[in-house]
């Protein structure tokens, strides 16, 4: 117990030290007593009648408010413990820590060009997908469907892309999974995605599209800075397949899932043999972790039985760090990132697509956020309306439906909140497609800009965050 208090106290100071690393003296405030005496200290807690101060000599002192000067009383009144903890949490935590602690499962994402590639299991077999916020529905590639032993339905459907429409069919997918996230008995559209691809790019193994429908359901977070994608597994399907309880048993650890939310507060541990369980570390020796399972039981797990990643986690785990992390449970990603000088935007959902407001050449416009667009793209008419000159249509843009003619244009100024991009060369093409009417957005805010701006996209909080270096 004693140790915990000491840790807490040290941690608190650490936050202030870190937050004001450039000017530590700011944190040491001179408090004045009614009797005129002065002490240098840091305020670490308060209640209605007293304040707890941490003195220069590392000792704590509980001081009645009434014994302090009016100035100090005012300072203490305005001081907010939450806010102080807030700074400490926000400056230190990575998006990854925050999300993994909350039961998100994270995967490294590979960038090919600017496309985010993930490998999921389609019917138990590896299948490559591009993570595409611009795809309203996910799409399978016909070749991939065949490779995974699934059947293509009749080509009676149509899917529409930037360059037109192509025939598609429904596929009954038994399982589509990634880590703990599982979709069962789904109908997903498939099309031949090799068709009409530009010369020289067909030899790359073509991927399907992991679209907004799935991303939304998994409360996905995409972090370009950390090169990671996070899913909050939807457990509703899993109970039907193989409950966590069964899995935990296999892992040699008994457990029973109680409440969905409670379960998500536990970390997912993976064993060497691929099995997993949800638990939190209570203590450790150099070789054994003592964990508390979701069921409430305590269990010992040899560290060498854990996956490489979890061994690293176990190796780095400290009691102090754990206490620290536990205080951050309520934080939103938004709070973390805005305090880290990210610009935060609430986005608007239209169907499965996400949009943010901004300006183009000082005119108010709306952008569609599209991780599937390697390069940002303007709609021809909207580009002209926003004062972008478009050159001869001698270029091509490629997408579903083949290629479409495009012209070069320079966007003099783009803003999203305080984020400003200037003099960016891009292409403009007619994006009205079969709608036959003007678009109500200016174009695609693509992966090129999102990578540059370390974008974080959160489906749960409906927000996108951009950082201007």
């Amino acid at each position, binding site marked *: 117990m004693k140790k915990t208090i000491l840790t807490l106290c040290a941690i*608190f100071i*650490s936050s202030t030290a870190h937050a004001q*690393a450039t000017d530590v003296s700011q944190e040491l405030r001179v408090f004045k007593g009614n009797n005129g005496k002065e002490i240098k200290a840091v305020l670490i807690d308060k209640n209605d009648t007293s304040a707890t101060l941490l003195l220069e000599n590392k000792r704590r002192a509980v001081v009645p408010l009434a014994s302090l000067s009016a100035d100090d009383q005012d300072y203490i009144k305005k001081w907010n413990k939450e806010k102080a903890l807030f700074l400490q949490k926000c400056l230190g935590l990575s998006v990854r820590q925050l999300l993994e602690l909350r039961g998100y499962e994270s995967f490294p994402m590979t960038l090919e060009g600017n496309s985010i590639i993930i490998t999921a299991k389609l019917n138990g077999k590896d299948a490559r997908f591009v993570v595409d916020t611009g795809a309203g529905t996910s799409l399978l590639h016909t070749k991939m469907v065949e490779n995974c032993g699934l059947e293509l339905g009749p080509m009676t459907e149509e899917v529409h892309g930037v360059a037109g429409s192509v025939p598609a069919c429904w596929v009954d997918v038994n399982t589509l999974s990634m880590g703990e996230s599982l979709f069962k008995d789904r109908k997903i559209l498939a099309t031949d995605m090799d068709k009409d691809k530009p010369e020289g790019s067909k030899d790359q193994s073509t991927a399907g599209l992991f679209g907004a429908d799935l991303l939304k359901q998994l409360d996905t977070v995409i972090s370009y800075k950390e090169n990671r994608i996070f899913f909050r597994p939807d457990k509703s399907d899993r109970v039907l397949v193989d409950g966590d309880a069964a899995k935990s048993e296999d892992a040699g650890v008994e457990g029973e899932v109680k409440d969905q939310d409670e379960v998500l507060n536990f970390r997912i541990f993976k064993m060497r043999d691929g099995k997993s369980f949800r638990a939190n570390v209570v203590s450790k020796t150099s070789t054994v972790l003592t964990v508390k399972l979701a069921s409430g039981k305590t269990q010992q797990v040899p560290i060498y039985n854990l996956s490489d990643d979890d061994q690293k986690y176990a190796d780095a785990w400290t009691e*102090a*760090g754990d206490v620290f992390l536990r205080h951050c449970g309520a934080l939103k990603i938004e709070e973390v990132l805005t305090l880290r000088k990210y610009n935060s935007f609430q986005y608007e959902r239209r169907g499965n697509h996400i949009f943010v407001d901004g300006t183009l050449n000082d005119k108010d416009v709306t952008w569609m956020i599209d991780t599937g667009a390697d390069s940002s793209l303007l709609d021809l008419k909207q580009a002209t309306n926003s004062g972008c000159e478009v050159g001869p249509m001698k270029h091509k843009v490629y997408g579903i439906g083949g290629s479409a003619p495009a012209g070069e244009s320079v966007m003099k100024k783009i803003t999203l909140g305080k984020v400003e991009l200037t*003099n960016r060369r891009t292409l403009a093409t007619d994006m009205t497609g079969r709608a036959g009417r003007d678009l109500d957005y200016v174009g695609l805010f693509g992966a*090129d800009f999102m990578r540059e701006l370390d974008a974080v996209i959160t489906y749960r909080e409906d927000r996108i965050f951009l950082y201007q270096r």
Partner: protein
Amino acid sequence: MKSTLYLLTLATSLFFSSIAQAEDSRTWTSIRGSTVDASLGRLDGDSVILVTKDRKEIKLAVTDLSLADRQYLVENVSAPEAILSAGELSMPEKDLKFDSKTCKKLDEKFKLSVEDSEGMFDQMETEHFLIAYAGDVRPNVVAEIAERLWHGMAFYHMNFRRDWGDKRRVIFCVEDRETYAALGKWYQDELAKEAVNADGQKRVQEFASTWDRVGGTSIQLPDELCEEKKFHTGATVFNMNQDREFKKVFTPFPTHVIAGHLLNQQMGGVGSVGGKGYFTVVTGHAFYKEIKLAGETETHLLDVGGTAGDEISSKAGFDDGSAWARILKSEVKRGKVKPNLLEILAVEAETLNPAKLVLVYSFANYLQSNSKRVSAFARMIRRVESNNTIPEPEELAKIYDFDSVEKMEADWIEYIKSKEFK
């Protein structure tokens, strides 16, 4: 006061130990070329404390770290941006303490495809490259040049090491004529498989007409091979006939070629709006590294023109390779050559002449000529990585902290006239 400082230090370390919980360890590089795998402990004034896997703490001055590491500190623990341009400009490629034991000859032969039963090439593996060679070749020389240039890229460009991953880039060094012809034939067939339209067929033509004449070029390896062997798709080829022997580290020609290929790989593909400026940046960089590291240039550029890709011309800078800077200085002073940002970015192989090429060289030289500029250069390359276009002149000026193109041009001209430009 002393005790307070102690407490604060202790507290800070606790604070960071919690960060380290999820942060992976990364490779840190010192300006003297040594590397260490460690996680970031904390920033302590002008020093950084790193924690190794076995929990040892290492304290280093921030200015002793590579530019890429400093950038990491700026972005992840709010280190002041001033550290990016602090200290003298180093030459990481030369500073690296190269351990020749990291070059290993492999028993197995290198095969271009699964069907290839024999394998035409001997192979030497290094940390980041695979040298596939045939004939009278010293693979260890090319290996060392490549590793040193790799280290230079990792030193300056924050994402380079991460993006490279655990793959190797293949470098073919072929002296044996028969093998060289067979490699050419194999690649020509690969290209022909892909060539479904006129553009594709033109590429095959161009390739066939230049294969015997080039000293160095790049090819794309098949996806299956790359996946199986963990190779990067882009590979470098050296045609090592009698007059082209790589005997010493930083032989000019391979230095030029590999430096260009590494930068190109880091910049990624050319975006949909085209490759304007790529030639200037990559070729300039290659000449810059060649002359800076080898002290001279022996590189000529081969250009293929004509409708069928059958007109081949060879381009180079001023004849006297050791006097480029001197001649350009005098031409600029006399007003015969006018450095202009828009024009320099529009230079293409077809329109190249000696004066333009030397100007491209001077520009590349200028872009990386001191700590501040080299940091801006890294910023520019990083933008190209995601945007796949070379920034417009106005943007380039901004990246280099100028409020107008004219001011950057004036600064570049000053540089050419100065003693710094050699």
